[in-house]
């Protein structure tokens, strides 16, 4: 199998799995307990927290372990909107992940002021509209760092500075789920108060992520209970996953330079062949300001549902960008908000490369796409 769906999830790095096993088997204690096996679990948890904090230039207490991207996004937005501050307004962008958009939709249904800002044809947020949407009710702005469908990278540091220049009290949240493998995440350099990261996008375990919460930011928890994570997220800790997450972050960080170079080459090979040989094929992804591993391409006259099925039959795994729970290809809200028609969105594909990708398999996959696109036209 040639796996080109790394934006959906990635294979776990073997060292990550190894690092987790002791905490699934021997050191099984509840990290809130008072005895040795619990203490050892607690130590591992806090060590993972410290390692993670150091890797994003944060303090350990600013890391809230969660079940991953969706929970972190929800906790960030609902947690801020529902804290005791009088501000409860949220502003976000049309190309965000559903975890953000649906959370914002819920807040709106609960009468919290919500604004969803549009993007241009490349997917860049309309900065004028974004800043214009800010007012004295605004509590938080949520802006994705790397788009999961197109790979577009927003200039978060600059946009955050502009937001803070309008009103320094407005918090900035970023869903950085797609970013960690290709860029260092420094919360100060990015200018963010809240940041979502999940492990399985860079060789870590699924169901393990965190929300960075800048010191002083008050959050109403979504899960109330035993008061773990300083009351911000109750529930018995998944120590093995936290350890696996920290290991994956360390390994992906160490591998980053190679990743950017080699995965970039693999993608370049793929794109060159497809764009050269498939008449009319165009990139939906922006030429510049793009992560090295995402490729969103439109092949006019070829329905994504059909080509993806044929690719799967031939052993290549890719996606249509967004899939519904049933697995049916749906029309991407990201591409639609960039101005593509529903029909054009149905001719669009996401090939996403990752830490296991090679130039050779990228070339093979491209040749197959070229062959099948020819057959299907």
């Amino acid at each position, binding site marked *: 199998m040639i796996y080109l769906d790394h934006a959906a999830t990635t294979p776990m790095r073997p060292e990550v799995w190894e690092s987790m096993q002791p905490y699934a088997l021997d050191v099984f204690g509840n990290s809130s307990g008072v005895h040795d096996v619990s203490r050892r679990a607690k130590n591992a948890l806090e060590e993972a927290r410290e390692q993670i904090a150091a890797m994003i230039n944060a303090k350990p207490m600013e890391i809230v372990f969660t079940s991953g991207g969706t929970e972190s996004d929800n906790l960030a937005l609902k947690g801020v909107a529902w804290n005791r501050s009088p501000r409860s307004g949220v502003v976000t962008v049309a190309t965000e992940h559903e975890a953000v958009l649906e959370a914002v939709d819920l807040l709106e249904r609960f009468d919290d002021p919500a604004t969803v800002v549009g993007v241009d044809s490349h997917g860049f947020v309309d900065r004028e509209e974004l800043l214009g949407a800010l007012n004295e009710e605004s509590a938080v702005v949520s802006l994705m760092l790397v788009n999961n469908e197109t790979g577009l990278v927003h200039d978060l540091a600059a946009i955050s500075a502009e937001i803070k220049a309008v009103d320094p009290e407005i918090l900035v949240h970023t869903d950085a789920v797609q970013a960690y493998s290709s860029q260092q995440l420094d919360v100060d350099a990015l200018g963010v108060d809240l940041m979502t990261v999940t492990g399985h996008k860079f060789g870590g375990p699924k169901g393990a992520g965190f929300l960075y919460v800048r010191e002083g930011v008050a959050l109403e928890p979504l899960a109330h209970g035993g008061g773990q994570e300083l009351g911000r997220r109750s529930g018995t800790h998944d120590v093995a996953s936290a350890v696996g997450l920290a290991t994956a972050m360390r390994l992906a960080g160490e591998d980053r330079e190679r990743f950017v170079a080699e995965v970039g080459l693999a993608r370049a090979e793929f794109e060159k062949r497809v764009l050269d040989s498939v008449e009319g094929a165009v990139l939906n992804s922006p030429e510049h300001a793009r992560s090295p591993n995402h490729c969103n391409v439109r092949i006019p006259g070829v329905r994504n*549902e059909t080509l993806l099925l044929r690719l799967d039959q031939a052993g290549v795994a890719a996606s249509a960008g967004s899939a*519904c729970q*049933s*697995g*049916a290809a749906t029309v991407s809200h990201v591409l639609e908000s960039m101005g593509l028609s529903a029909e054009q969105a149905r001719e669009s594909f996401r090939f996403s490369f990752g830490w296991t990708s090679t130039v050779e398999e990228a070339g093979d996959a491209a040749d197959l796409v070229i062959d099948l696109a020819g057959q299907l036209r």
Partner: protein
Amino acid sequence: MRALVAMSGGVDSSVAAALMRDQGHDVIGVTLKLWSGPNGEAPTAGCCTVSDAEDARRVAAELDIPYYVLDYTDDFKDGVVDRFVRDYTSGQTPNPCIECNRTVKFDRLLNRLGEFDCDVLVTGHHAQVCEVDGSWALFRGADPKKDQSYVLSMLTSDQLSRLRFPVGELTKKKVRHIAAGMGMRSAHKPESMDICFVGQGDYRGFLRKQAPEVFKPGPVEDTQGNELGTHDGIVGFTVGQRRGLGVAVGEPRFVVRIEADTNTVVVGDRDDLEVTSVDVDHITWADGNAYEGPVTAQFRAHGDPVDAVLSGSTLTFDESQHAVAPGQTVAFYSGDRVMGGALISRANL
């Protein structure tokens, strides 16, 4: 052969997929995503959870065949649901399942067989296809109680040549037996009877939500044109209906006619439901050759076939028939062989 199996999650299509696989064919399972919610409400997260699709997926996994969900929501909305509403609005009695078979399942999927690199389309219908004198023909299923050839009567020989119905030669009991023998989860699943997008069998509630504007009050009249009362919209009525007429009269009264032009529901007694002939349109002959003369006609999925004579577009019954309504499909048979099908455009008393 490479076979694309349309899997609904029910026992028939599950066994159809298993039989094709066991005959040594390369099998791909697909489920058509047709509709978002049971009452047409938009799904909240731009996502769909179709529990039947989930059953189909699990069966495909048990059979170890690849499985995909294909999005046909637009085609289904345009070709089936909107038409269903439109037909009721114009006083007809549509059969959305037939329309779905014709426009979505067979037409669209057959046209895409090549795209999927498949040779035949397989479904779990109880009907049989055979080649007779070089032409593909449709026959009744082997289990008379489960025969579904009526709903397939609009298929042409060309379409039939690329269709296979592996369970059509089996009784339903045998199908369930095979499924149980394979430990299939769908072995004991009950039959689905409701119109899939309507849910709970209440098409009036569905219409009320989908097209509230068609619930326009109008008169209820007898066959002599005397107004007996009022109704709250013709879409609430079908020919032959006895209950809920909103008129109090001594003897049993039935809806005998719906006049969309004047928004009138006409009621009469049982005799007024007797139909001597019907006009038909959209005639499809399986072998492409138009036919006139004596035929066996069936106008309900499990109705008894009756003798009639087809002349032009008029079908005259040898004996008058009870409650036959415009919009219904009529299937033409010669013995067990399906010759063709048509839509009833007008019932003549």
